[in-house]
């Protein structure tokens, strides 16, 4: 039905476009039009499409609620107030209505299903009819409003503007929605576990008893080991990626011949496209054993999964983020500044250090921040190379774990939705979100501070 509706809509819009454009073009022979005929056509098409989409959305939502309500009433009015059985009952009705229900259906279920089928069809047709009627009306309206003075071009500009605004609004509202739902679940978590224990506790083991008579694990939710693990791995990663990425960028922007640059840059960017799971097994199967071997031969005790292995590979992963963006901002520094410096008798490296890099600093800082955010949010490599053990350790040779890994571990498998364990994932998510947000705010502040000075 939906496909049919949209096919009709497209047909109608195309019809309106060509008809209106043709009419306007015909009119243009006799007089000068304010807007070119194609703008009349575009406006007509937009005037058909937008209301029809709106009707379909609003109509479908309203119809679904109405149908559900009526079907439940037909089955058993008592269901309406029974939150627990309501969902299951409606599912049964739907299954039965499409012919997959059990053969031994009760009288009541049959009645509900019949009502459901009948009303579904009815509302579908109603939406279709309404949409079609409005679409045709709008097309006719567009036809009538063609005239020399009609400012179709300006009107269409407005339509475009509102469309863009709608898209921006959707993005913003989604973000706000996600933040609030995470925040809400986090509050629920804090009703079970005290925020103090969560924020400052040094022991993380989220196993809770599922049944009351189960012994042992009562669960403890101190996030400090995860915070330390995350910081440890990200620090190692940025220590690897920062210098390599920045120096590679400086070489490519300032020293390399255009030929070298032309093939080296794309290759570096391919690195950013390697799936992290591939890098993960590279970390787990190659780097981690190597570190262990080297460590043992030096007489160090190295865990088979270590923060160092994960951090190193993650560092390699984020090199392109640092280098590619830094390269762009360094290249964007005006040549006149370099000339000025050379003209003063500065060498190339003096010029880079004293003029080019300071001028490019805001961009370089954002490149680093982006890279750090990527490192903090990265899960796969850590799971594979650093393990799951929530050790509170600053030693890069130990196995550690991070926020993202624990969120993933908690939510994989069967879960009871309102247990402290599951809710802990939201709390961790919120902390992570807060963490990256803070990073971004700091980055923005730095960028803004230096922008003022360096424009």
């Amino acid at each position, binding site marked *: 039905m939906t496909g049919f509706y949209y096919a009709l809509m497209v047909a109608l819009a195309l019809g309106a476009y060509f008809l209106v454009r043709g009419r306007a073009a015909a009119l243009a022979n006799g007089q000068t039009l304010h807007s070119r005929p194609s703008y009349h056509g575009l406006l007509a098409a937009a005037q058909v499409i937008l209301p029809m989409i709106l009707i379909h959305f609003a109509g479908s939502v309203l119809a679904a609620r109405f149908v559900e309500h009526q079907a439940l009433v037909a089955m058993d009015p008592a269901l309406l107030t029974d939150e627990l059985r309501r969902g299951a009952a409606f599912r049964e009705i739907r299954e039965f209505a499409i012919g997959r229900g059990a053969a031994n259906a009760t009288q009541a279920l049959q009645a509900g299903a019949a009502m459901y089928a009948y009303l579904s069809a009815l509302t579908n047709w109603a939406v279709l009819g309404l949409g079609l009627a409005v679409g045709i009306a709008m097309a006719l309206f567009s036809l009538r409003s063609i005239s020399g003075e009609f400012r179709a071009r300006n009107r269409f500009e407005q339509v475009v503007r509102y469309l863009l605004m709608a898209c921006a609004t959707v993005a913003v509202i989604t973000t706000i929605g996600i933040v609030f739902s995470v925040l809400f679940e986090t509050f629920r978590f804090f009703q079970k576990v005290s925020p103090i224990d969560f924020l400052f506790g040094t022991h993380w083991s989220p196993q809770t008893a599922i049944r009351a008579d189960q012994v042992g694990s009562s669960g403890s939710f101190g996030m400090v080991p995860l915070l330390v693990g995350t910081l440890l791995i990200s620090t190692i990663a940025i220590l690897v990626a920062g210098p390599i990425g920045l120096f590679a960028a400086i070489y490519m922007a300032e020293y390399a011949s255009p030929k070298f640059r032309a093939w080296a840059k794309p290759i570096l960017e391919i690195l950013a496209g390697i799936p992290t799971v591939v890098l993960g097994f590279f970390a787990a199967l190659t780097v981690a054993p190597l570190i262990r071997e080297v460590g043992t031969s030096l007489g160090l005790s190295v865990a088979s999964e270590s923060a160092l292995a994960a951090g190193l590979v993650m560092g390699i992963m984020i090199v392109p983020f640092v280098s590619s963006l830094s390269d762009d901002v360094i290249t964007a520094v005006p040549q006149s500044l370099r*000339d000025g410096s*050379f*003209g003063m*008798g*500065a060498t190339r490296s003096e010029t880079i250090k*004293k003029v080019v890099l300071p001028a490019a600093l805001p961009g370089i800082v954002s490149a680093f921040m982006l890279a750090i955010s990527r490192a903090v949010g990265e899960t796969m490599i850590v799971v594979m190379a650093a393990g799951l053990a929530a050790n509170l350790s600053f030693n890069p040779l130990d196995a550690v774990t991070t926020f993202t890994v624990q969120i993933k571990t908690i939510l994989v498998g069967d879960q009871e939705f309102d247990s402290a364990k599951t809710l802990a994932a939201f709390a961790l998510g919120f902390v992570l979100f807060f963490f990256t947000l803070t990073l971004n705010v700091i980055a923005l502040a730095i960028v803004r501070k230096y922008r003022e*000075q360096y424009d």
Partner: protein
Amino acid sequence: MSFASPMIQEPASVPEPAVAAKVAARNVNVHYAEKHALKDVSVDIPARAVTSFIGPSGCGKSTFLRCINRMNDTIPICRVTGEITIDGKDIYDSRLDVVLLRARVGMVFQKPNPFPKSIYENVAYGPRLHGMARNKTELDEIVVNSLKRASLFEEVKDRLQESGTGLSGGQQQRLCIARAIAVSPEVILMDEPCSALDPIATAKIEELIDELRSNFTIVIVTHSMQQAARVSQRTAFFHLGSLVEEGSTEQIFTNPKDKRTQDYITGRFG
């Protein structure tokens, strides 16, 4: 640091030119890849005077100017042949340190290009690079003196720590001049230094050039006949990559020998 010492260890074998010139060019040719941009240019530039280069757009004025401090070295496709000497020493000698050459031959560009640093740091840039100040007091002194000689000090003395890019265009250009003279160069090259400025700022810079003449050898490229006539003692006219005529400014503007020079200064082409 003193620049009186020779830039190259051995004395060059170039004979002293007949005229006592600060900068002397002999048969200079410049190619940008295949393009022959400068053809057999020979000219003497006297010390402690202003020499202006005039000529229609694209005739090679900037190219020649950039030969004098070897800024063309930064353009990979650019090839320079011939000989340019400063105080009788060949500046294209392979033993010469081009970085030191550029400290002796300062440059001011067409568009003001202050570094994105404070006013103070802009002027201190060169002295710091070349280790010309032993301590902060000496550096302060160099900065203040340079700003004063560029007649900018009065306007900026209360905001030396503010960004140089926040100044007006004319102030920025004077800052660039201050930056150039802070390393006590012997020659200052200016490529259309006033083309981005309004008449008042231009007048200030011209006044400044006239004052600087007593201490520096100045070469200025300009598109304004009036400017050339006002500030320079000698004028060279370029056309299509060749030096057509060179002489005292008065002679060039009142009694040019070449027909092309006459046409250009009377505004018949260019």
